[in-house]
């Protein structure tokens, strides 16, 4: 026996179809300690077997179950229905700012394309025979990396960002946050090209510091702060004549 009890029925609206789809209502048994992912899974298993959605770990680690819940991007596995329901209403849609593949599944390609455009990959100069780089744990650069390194690219910040919504070219919080960690990594050797990439059209200067990314990041990161660091660096480089 479990402690869960069916107390009532929950009316849930779930996005069905691609970009031209719409919300469809389902009645789902209400249970104690029920997550939004539980609701979506119940609908797929009992009401709509063709419902498409993503999840993997179910335990607040991987970030693949990100969806829009009552207008806000959230990890559905960690979102308890009791905490996110508003006036008895639960609306579940795909992440915003990304093309919809089907139902609750979005195409993350543009998110990762921008991550690469911001030169999010590490470029080292040392070979295997070179000595290990000595990085002081309490150095300011390492501290800046520590604050931003835990991003797992779930796309919540990208879906939450007004600047991304308004400007399709904007690289977005996750890509710029990643660039900030590499710019502060003294082992990386492509920072000049990275600075050019993050200061080009669609770069860090398009952030309006609304801080929605910080408010909604499930990992508690502050991409706005990372982007502010990039703004300072790019402005200084521009004034020195290093950036056009």
């Amino acid at each position, binding site marked *: 026996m479990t402690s869960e009890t069916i107390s009532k029925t929950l009316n849930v609206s779930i996005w069905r179809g691609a970009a031209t789809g719409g919300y469809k209502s389902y009645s789902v048994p209400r249970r104690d300690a029920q997550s939004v992912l539980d609701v979506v899974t119940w609908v797929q298993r009992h009401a709509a077997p063709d419902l498409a959605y993503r999840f993997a770990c179910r335990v607040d680690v991987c970030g693949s179950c990100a969806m829009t819940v009552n207008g806000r991007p959230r990890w559905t596995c960690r979102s308890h229905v009791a905490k996110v329901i508003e006036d008895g209403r639960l609306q579940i849609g795909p992440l915003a700012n990304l093309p919809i593949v089907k139902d609750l599944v979005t195409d993350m390609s543009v998110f990762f394309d921008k991550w690469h455009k911001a030169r999010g990959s590490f470029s080292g100069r040392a070979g295997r025979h070179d000595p290990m780089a000595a990085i002081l744990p309490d150095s300011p650069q390492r501290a800046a990396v520590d604050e931003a390194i835990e991003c797992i690219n779930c796309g919540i910040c990208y879906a939450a960002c007004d600047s991304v919504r308004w400007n399709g070219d904007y690289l977005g919080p996750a890509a710029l946050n990643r660039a900030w960690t590499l710019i502060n990594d003294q082992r990386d050797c492509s920072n000049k090209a990275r600075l050019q990439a993050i200061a080009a059209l669609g770069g860090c*200067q*398009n952030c309006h510091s609304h801080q929605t990314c910080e408010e909604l990041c499930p990992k508690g990161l502050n991409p706005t702060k990372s982007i502010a660091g990039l703004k300072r660096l*790019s*402005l200084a480089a521009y004034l020195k004549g290093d950036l*056009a």
Partner: protein
Amino acid sequence: MSLRLYALQRMTAALMIPLIAGHLMVIFYATHNGLAAAEILSRTRGSLFWAAFYGAFVGAAAIHAAIGLRSVASDWTRLKPGALNGLMWGAGAILLALGTGAVIAVVMP
């Protein structure tokens, strides 16, 4: 927004911080002492200092606001870059003309 416009907007913002503080002090001084328009004009007319002060203020505000309007229009409308630049230059020219007219009226002997 390009980095050039971003830099220009930040630099004009930095320039306006002391100018706004000075402008507010002028307002407080004038109202606290109950100065009439003629008394204010007697101090500002022919003054190179006030011409430079408010001339710089008008120039910085025109540049700063025009870039800001371009940014708002870029976010909220579907205008193309050419139209956005036209809006920016037009808004900047209007603000500059209005502000320059006001400065001339206050400082010209």
